[in-house]
């Protein structure tokens, strides 16, 4: 019996290591055949912004890895609307994350679902294991 795992991301990238090390857990966890979802809220939505360029900072740019999540069958990525709005962002500011749906002739679909805080609360409540970073 598989469990429902939710990874909750509430912190901005680069200022601290939590975003990067959370992603490492998700990638390893993908091999365990559990039901996996990711939630991005509060400053966590900044993890998914397009156009990250880290050369001048001298640190590793790990944002391309989010685009690989679809290949790992991690395609339930919930982004909270209220968090985006408070930061002056829209979905267009975020990386386009997609996956190929094997139940629909491998059609390319969006992994990101924009949800309200109330909807996200329901999603959190529906999990078996919640890991927060």
């Amino acid at each position, binding site marked *: 019996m598989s469990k429902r795992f939710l990874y909750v991301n509430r912190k901005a990238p680069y200022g601290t290591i939590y975003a990067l090390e959370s992603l490492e857990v998700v990638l390893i966890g993908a091999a*365990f055949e559990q039901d996996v979802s990711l939630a991005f809220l509060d400053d966590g939505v900044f993890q998914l912004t397009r156009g990250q360029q880290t050369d001048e900072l001298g640190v590793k740019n790990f944002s391309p890895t989010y685009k690989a999540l679809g290949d790992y069958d991690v395609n339930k990525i919930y982004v909270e609307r209220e968090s985006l709005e408070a930061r002056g962002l829209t979905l267009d500011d975020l990386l386009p994350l997609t996956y190929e749906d094997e139940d629909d002739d491998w059609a390319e679909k969006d992994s990101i679902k924009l949800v309200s805080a109330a909807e996200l609360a329901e999603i959190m409540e529906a999990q078996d294991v919640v890991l927060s970073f």
Partner: protein
Amino acid sequence: MKFSILVSEGPYTHEAADTAYNFTKAALEKGHEIFRIFFYHDGVNNGTRLATPPQDDRNIVNRWSTLAQEHDIDLVLCVAAAQRRGIADADEARRNGKDADNMAPGFRISGLGQLIEAGIEADRLITFGD
């Protein structure tokens, strides 16, 4: 009931290591089972035997080692987090070409899969962090 515990911060700097310890002790006293304590992020710094805290303060590392010994608890340091931060057992030190190691007794180093397994196998997973 079977608990797994995730500790995400190092000793002393954040209270997380204290809360995790107090929680674990209470859980054991109430007859619960601790499936595993997994140390991630700066949490791996709980597993160094080179710490020498002031004598009038608690010794967080020794507390974990003692708990592991007395209750046969599985204390796992994440290998990737430990490498970044300079925590190594003898094997890891050799593999990475280091001339010394610093892991404390009662801990072991392993992969992140052990955290996922801890979430799958236990009835509850609880996180202590910053």
